[in-house]
């Protein structure tokens, strides 16, 4: 017969002497470091947009001097796109359910599942707000500057193929990484609630 209380005692004795105390400063330092990393990521996105946008402003200014108004229009479109991307990313992150570790486990798993689905949807729609506008802007700008020459057509095909490939890769990541995880969480939640109804 298994002696449950003895097993518990043995379990609870593990690591009592061996564990080192955790300095509070270390936890706080780690917290600050994680927050800094998040800020740095947001800053990089914004700075990238700030570099891309002025570049197209400059190109547009130059083309305006030559009277190439269609090209100027595409430059303006790309400037708007470069400014919109960090805003869209910021909005998407805000809309994402942030994990609340204090919830009971079943509610935490439900929340995680919703977060996984939101993440998957964001990746699946990336072609609408990121790839397609970029492709349209770049291809439109090239065609309006040089016309449909052989070189421009090859360049446009490469840009479109690259964007299509990125779109596919994001769809694949959404399905394989986030949708699969969401399904797995759903199974776990169903397992927990099945016990409830028995």
């Amino acid at each position, binding site marked *: 017969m*298994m002696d449950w209380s003895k097993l518990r005692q043995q*379990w*609870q004795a593990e*690591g009592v002497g061996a564990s080192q105390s955790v300095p509070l400063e270390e936890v706080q330092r780690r917290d600050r470091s994680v927050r800094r990393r998040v800020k740095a990521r947001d800053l990089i996105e914004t700075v990238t947009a700030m570099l891309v946008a002025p570049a197209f402003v400059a190109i547009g200014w130059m083309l305006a001097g030559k009277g190439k108004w269609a090209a100027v229009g595409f430059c303006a479109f790309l400037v708007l796109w470069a400014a919109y991307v960090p805003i869209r990313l910021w909005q998407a992150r805000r809309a994402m359910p942030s994990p609340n570790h204090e919830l009971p486990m079943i509610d935490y798993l439900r929340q995680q599942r919703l977060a996984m689905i939101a993440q998957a949807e964001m990746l699946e729609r990336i072609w609408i707000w990121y790839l397609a506008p970029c492709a349209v802007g770049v291809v439109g700008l090239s065609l309006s500057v040089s016309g449909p020459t052989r070189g421009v057509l090859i360049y446009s095909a490469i840009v479109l193929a690259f964007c299509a490939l990125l779109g596919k890769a994001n769809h694949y990541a959404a399905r394989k990484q986030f949708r699969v995880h969401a399904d797995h969480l759903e199974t776990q939640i169903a397992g927990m609630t099945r016990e409830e109804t028995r």
Partner: protein
Amino acid sequence: MSQGSTDQAFARMLSDNRAALARLARRYAARDDWQDLLQEMHLQLWRSFAGFDGRAQLSTWVYRVALNTALSHRRKPRRDHAPLEEIHERGDAGVPGDPMSVLEAFLSELDPIQRSVLVLDLEGMEREQIAEVLGISLGAVATRMTRLRQALEARIQENP
């Protein structure tokens, strides 16, 4: 609560629970990853500590945060076997065929939810507290616990 007293209360809570948190981390992370998980648990506890409103017992709250953190921390597969030095660290827990070794093997085969029920029971929590941590009914906890104990007992008897 002032920042100084929050810091003190947090440090005391961490100190009171350090061994339990280490035990949890070892069972939910890969062999070379459990200390990362432990640090992640400390971090999440720190970030959530200011929001602790005392509606649940502190120990219930600590296990909730720690276990939820562990469930999210599945980047690496969990270890199946403990290395020799870890077994020695655990005192008399590593003798082959003894109930603790069988328990370790048994735990490694359970899904994270079942593992939580058994681990919380081993930590000495009442069924009501376990139900609160997991968010399921007392009856569901009792059913799971009975099944798990029976399965573990059968396993121990198979390995005298």
